[in-house]
């Protein structure tokens, strides 16, 4: 639904990124910072101190009305009606055949008011699907992406540097909870969520206040080692944390079960939902593929689409791969046939990845690659 022929959209913070000298890239129809300097330094800052990200390309879809909860229960695989106000949940929206249209975070803001955060590349598809699925309910779907900036502050020092700027006690904000708050004088929805494997926060702020909020957080965090971080670091951070990326590990050809995320499908919930029959069938069947983690013994990096080899034959495909700054070696996620995963596991995890025509040794490992302490 994105118009690739037109100029990429600018976020409320694109001007700030230009002033910071960022390398900008067209990502899902948006002009986004890929990196400001060294993406490895940005990655390491998030692991050891803190990073600030512009995620304003993400879609903010509001579902409101007396039947908002029921409409969402019908539209997504999870059970948003069971969420308490102020809590959030990771979920998926599937097609009737069980294929994943997008992975989402659903926030219950109030009775009859939900915020659904979609990937930028899927916002239009998700908005259309939610609207269609809400048609039989007293609920309204509104795409308010353009009204919001989304700023993420991630890393072990995120809470400490934000605390003096906000009027709420961050110690009270649990993981996957959200509160209306004031940060540096800006009214925001503050959520303890993220996509980095670290503690951190995501701030939904009015677009007009984005620059002043970014500047205030940057100033407050400079002494703590906070630096701006781009999409390149975000991708290696989420890969180390074993988090799926739509378009790589998730897509219309995959069900949540393929990605090892069957827990997001609530087959037992009271209401019917789109994709239920197909997903129930898939849950009962033998899996056709399995998402696994691989570490490489070569310095040649496995990339998206490279074949995974078992005994010289293709037994799967890499979905994401990168040199891991934290582990100091290349890592990858891949879909492999369950028989291949079992066979490799019984051979100390050893298999190979076809890296541009040359097999390189790799090892099957448990996901995630990285788990933060404490």
């Amino acid at each position: 639904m994105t118009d690739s022929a037109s100029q990429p959209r600018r976020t409320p913070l694109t001007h700030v990124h230009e002033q910071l000298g960022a390398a900008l890239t067209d990502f899902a129809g948006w002009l986004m910072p890929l990196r400001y300097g060294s993406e490895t330094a940005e990655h390491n800052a998030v692991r050891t101190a803190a990073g600030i990200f512009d995620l304003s390309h993400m879609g903010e879809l509001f579902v409101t009305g007396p039947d908002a909860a029921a409409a969402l229960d019908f539209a997504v695989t999870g059970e948003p009606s069971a969420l308490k106000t102020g809590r959030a949940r990771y979920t998926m929206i599937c097609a009737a055949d069980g294929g994943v249209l997008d992975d989402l975070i659903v926030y219950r803001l109030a009775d009859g008011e939900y915020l659904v955060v979609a990937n930028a590349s899927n916002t239009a598809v998700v908005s259309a699907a939610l609207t269609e699925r809400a048609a039989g309910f007293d609920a309204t779907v509104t795409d308010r992406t353009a009204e919001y900036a989304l700023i993420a502050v991630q890393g072990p020092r995120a809470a400490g540097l934000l605390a003096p700027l906000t009027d709420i006690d961050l110690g009270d904000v649990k993981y996957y909870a959200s509160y209306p708050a004031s940060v540096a004088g800006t009214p925001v929805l503050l959520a303890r969520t993220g996509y980095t494997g670290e503690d951190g926060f995501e701030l939904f702020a009015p677009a007009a206040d984005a620059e002043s909020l970014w500047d205030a957080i940057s100033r407050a965090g400079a002494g703590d080692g906070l630096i701006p971080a781009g999409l390149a670091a975000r991708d290696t951070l989420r890969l180390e944390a074993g988090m799926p990326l739509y378009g790589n590990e998730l897509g219309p050809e995959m069900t949540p079960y393929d990605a090892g995320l069957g827990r997001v499908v609530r087959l037992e919930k009271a209401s019917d939902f789109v994709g239920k029959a197909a997903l129930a069938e898939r849950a009962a069947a033998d899996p056709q593929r399995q998402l696994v983690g691989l570490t490489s013994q070569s310095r040649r990096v496995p990339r998206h689409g490279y074949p995974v080899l078992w005994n010289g034959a293709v037994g799967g495909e890499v979905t994401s791969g990168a040199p891991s700054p934290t582990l100091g070696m290349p890592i990858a996620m891949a879909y492999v046939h369950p028989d291949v995963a079992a066979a490799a596991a019984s051979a100390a995890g050893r298999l190979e990845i076809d890296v541009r025509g040359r097999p390189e040794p790799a090892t099957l490992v448990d996901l995630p690659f990285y788990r933060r302490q404490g």
Partner: protein
Amino acid sequence: MTVPAELHYTAEHEWVAINDSVASVGITDHAQRALGDVVFVSAPAAGSRVTAGEPCGEVESTKSVSDLYSPVDGEVTEVNPEIDDDPGLVNSDPYGAGWLFKVRLDGAGEMPPGLLSAAEYTSLTKEEE
């Protein structure tokens, strides 16, 4: 972006410094910026033959991998021993400490054909943007 005037260039973003019959080769500032952090360079081994315009190695960065092309014909005499331990030299000093390999040119004393001047390379990279 810097493009030193005294060097020669290829359209594949290598630079060449020619001293008598030996050419030093690396990748340009433009290339290292586009690649991002370089994590591994596979350069042609000392003693191997390289041919102008042919792939002779790989440069791996966080986000991508790209082929390394030899700008000249000849025999590799030396590979930068520092790059293996510190591939980030390609980012921090692409025209200096980040050099990749040296080649003894086949046509001694002759200027290898097909190379771009600094001005030609600069206009090429402007076109790409």
